[in-house]
């Protein structure tokens, strides 16, 4: 960022609202029985319904409603007892019916909020939600040199759109919000949050205004950003662009922009590309969506512990806010951490282990977290051995590295690599005797009061034992022998 820009962001503030589209984790599509599985061959997961053949009718997938409600409850929304579906009309080759079934005036979830981790200054950050509604996804156009093809596998995959109020003030805010939102979606099993498979997409509404101003500036919409990084970069760019326009006395045009991740800039779409009159009207093929209070309560009863609650619990159980925050950020990581705990006395050492060793392996792998790292139960076994002084911490690290590659269990790995600590007192005593015999001068110094030399003797014994001796036993024996 240049100096002028830095100065300008002190004078101006950005006002940002996000619209996030995420696929819901259902086995079948929203209005037909086709599979939602990603990665099938083109047009393999299709039927007359999701191809929009003449005469077909939609039947709503119950699980879609449950997942939308779960998300709504996790974000403190009001669940609408009665909502309807609408048709949103526009022509595009990937839209088989010429309209998308969505919810317009009556979303299934209203209001609500998501709390972000506090800012560096410790200020709480709450982002209010406008709504969450249910809709169907379209297919996918694939452009070749001379032809465009359409794959309808994605057509009819269920989506929810989560619309925030313009409560975000920076690209960092937006990133924090997206991460928190994704964590919630994963906690409630609503979404896998996989951006690379197009299952999580974001549109940003961005405007700028002088700090302290009450009125909003003219906003632009940046469409279809499919990674957190792009969202942050695009907002950063767009805020700078708008400030420059306002600073030079110009007016920001109300436009829709596309982010070009290669050139790292936004460019306006032609008005023809987005200026649709969607001609919404109630979908006559679907009855109103009635959500009885009992259903909401049933879903509420089945809700898992949410990230904020889990974080609070970890802190009550002795972890620092930082540790708790890192662990709960991803539900898989938090679950992993908890699965290492049975039989362990010290949960802090487990937390450290997961945060350092395990997360490092996960980061270096292309695989999803659960596939990249050894089973949590095996890491738990490793940590229990450290606690029982059966192995040293270093031995545990060596074993862990081997387990990542071999997929073998903790005990087998320890045995195979001969990493078990020697606690056999006679062997250790023999090693101590040798060291004492070899270092008469140091022994004399120690006995004369140079306590610091004790560490030297421990190290020497450990070295003689090939690093596998139980340090506690070395300590005890050495103390006895040196005291003579």
């Amino acid at each position, binding site marked *: 960022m240049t100096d002028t820009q830095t100065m300008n962001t002190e004078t101006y503030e950005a006002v940002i609202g996000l619209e996030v589209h995420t696929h819901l984790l259902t086995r079948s599509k929203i209005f037909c029985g086709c599979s939602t599985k990603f990665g099938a061959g083109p047009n393999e997961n299709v039927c*007359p319904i999701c*191809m*929009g*053949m*003449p*005469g*077909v*009718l*939609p*039947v*709503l997938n119950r699980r879609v409603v449950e997942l939308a409600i779960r998300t709504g409850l996790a974000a403190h929304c009001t669940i609408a007892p009665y909502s309807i579906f609408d*048709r949103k*009309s526009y*022509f*595009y*080759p990937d839209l*088989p*019916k*010429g*309209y998308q079934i969505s919810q317009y005036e009556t979303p299934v979830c209203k209001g609500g909020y998501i709390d972000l981790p506090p800012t560096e200054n410790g200020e709480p950050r709450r982002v209010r939600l406008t709504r969450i509604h249910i809709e169907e996804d379209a297919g996918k156009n694939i452009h070749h040199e001379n032809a465009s093809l*359409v794959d309808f596998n994605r057509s009819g995959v269920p989506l929810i759109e989560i619309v925030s109020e313009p409560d975000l003030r920076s690209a960092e805010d937006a990133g924090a919000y997206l991460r928190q939102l994704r964590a919630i979606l994963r906690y409630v099993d609503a979404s896998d949050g996989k951006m690379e498979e197009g299952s999580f997409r974001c549109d940003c509404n961005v405007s700028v205004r002088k700090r302290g101003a009450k009125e909003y500036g003219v906003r632009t919409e940046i469409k279809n950003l499919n990674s957190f990084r792009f969202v942050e970069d695009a907002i950063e760019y767009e805020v700078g662009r708008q400030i420059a326009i306002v600073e030079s006395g110009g007016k920001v045009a109300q436009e829709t922009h596309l982010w070009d991740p290669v050139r790292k800039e936004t460019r306006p779409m032609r008005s023809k590309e987005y200026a649709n*009159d969607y*001609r*919404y*009207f109630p979908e*006559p*093929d*679907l*009855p109103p969506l009635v959500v009885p209070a009992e259903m909401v309560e049933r879903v509420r009863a089945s809700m898992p512990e949410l990230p904020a609650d889990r974080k609070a619990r970890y802190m009550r159980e002795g972890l620092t806010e930082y540790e708790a925050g890192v662990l709960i950020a991803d539900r898989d990581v938090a679950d992993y951490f908890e699965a290492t705990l049975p039989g362990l006395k010290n949960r802090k050492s487990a937390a450290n282990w997961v945060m350092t060793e395990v997360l490092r392996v996960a980061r270096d792998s292309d695989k999803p977290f659960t596939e990249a790292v050894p089973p949590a139960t095996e890491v738990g076994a490793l940590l229990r051995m450290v606690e029982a002084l059966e192995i040293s911490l270093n031995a545990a690290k060596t074993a862990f590295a081997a387990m990542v590659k071999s997929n073998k269990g903790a005990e087998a790995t320890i045995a195979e690599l001969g990493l078990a600590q020697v606690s056999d007192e006679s062997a250790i005593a023999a090693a101590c005797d040798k060291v004492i015999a070899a270092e008469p001068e140091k022994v004399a110094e120690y006995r004369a009061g140079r306590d610091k030399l004790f560490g030297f003797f421990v190290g020497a014994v450990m070295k003689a034992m090939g690093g596998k001796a139980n340090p506690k036993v070395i300590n005890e024996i050495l103390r006895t022998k040196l005291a003579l």
Partner: protein
Amino acid sequence: MASGLNNLTIAEASAKLRAREITATNLTRDCLDRIAAAEPKLHAFITVCEKEALDQARAADTRLAAGNAPALCGIPLGIKDIYATKGVRTTCASRILENFVPPFDATVIERLRAEGAVFVGKTNLDEFAMGSSTENSAFGPTLNPHDTERVSGGSSGGSAAAVAAHECLGSLGTDTGGSIREPASFCGVVGIKPTYSRVSRYGVIAYASSLDQVGPFTKSVRDAAILLQTLAGKDVCDSTCSARPVPDYELALTGDVKGLRIGVPREFFVEGMQPEVEQSVRSALKNYESLGASTVEISLPHTGYAIAAYYLVATAEASANLARYDGIRYGLRANAEDNIALYETTRAQGFGAEVKRRIMLGTFALSAGYYDAYYLKGQKVRTLIRNDFERAFEKCDLIVTPVAPATAFKIGEKMNDPLTMYLSDIFTISVNLAGLPGMAMPCGHDSNNLPIGMQLIAPPFAEETILRAGDAFERTGAFKSRSPVV
């Protein structure tokens, strides 16, 4: 017409088939022979399925020989070309679907197939069911079997004419604003539009989803009861379809209408209607009185707004329903440079004038800034019309009216005047707007020997009342349908 089995009613043929007095194959052959003879003059069918029909008939004979075959086993039917039929071209009388072969069956087709019914062919209609004369078919009109200079009515004109001309024993139509009842009336057959949601719409090509309903054409009220029995009932593929149990409709045909209160709405006997139509309906009402029913004048004050409301709601829904015909996945595709040109050219070439007119009307009615004034207002009028009927049914059990203000008009007479054409449905449209069941049945002839139809309307799901009253009228023998001239 050697043996003339095609002249039987469904009830008669079903009894003979099950008694093994006749075979489904012979019955089907007679229908196909009749089709071959009559089609050059009528054009009731877009596609005749001779081979498939004979295969189905043979299969039905095997089933009949085994005993315990269902009522419709071996019965030759005509299917409006708006129903998706697996493996059989389904055009909706449109160039845009001229070569479309669906990979699936409509739910009602599936049900009829399961009963062993025989499908002799796909019948003609106004393109996408938009019209009142079948003149809007891209493949030419269906002519009236009673006078081939006149229209068969529409949009289900082919289905009505085919039954009237004994090309099949019964047929399926759809009714959005009168598309079963008006052609039934013009052709002198029975046609019932059940309560909205009584019959599944899955696989029925949509015109106006909140108004479209499936129903049969038959030669008698009893036959209508038999067909409706198979058509009606819950369908997991149509979430607007009612789960309400289906009564035994034939049991309702007791012949007894003593104490039945018949409402006669004053708004349905209007200035300018053909006097013979009013006379025939009034004479039928006298018949009911002689059977022990009573008549009472009622009022449906919002009737005058029905056509306007209909043309907002129906066209709005149609504009979205027909958006899928874009040349991308199936049907006609024009050559074009880019997406927009592809849509424009495909739809310009594929749709006829009336379809384009309604798509434009509907698109306008839903446009930003017009929604409240048009679509929403139309829906509000619909509620008023429904309330009118609710109030009326506090005073009566059944409403009887003419089906149309006049008998079948001449080919071409109204083609250049869409508004006059729209008025053909003036007595039928409010029944769709209110979602009620309504039946058309013959009750007389005019001086040109053209059939006159009366309409029986009942509260939601009271199809039994309609069928009982219609059957009772038939039993009096007060009126006998004349044979068609073709």
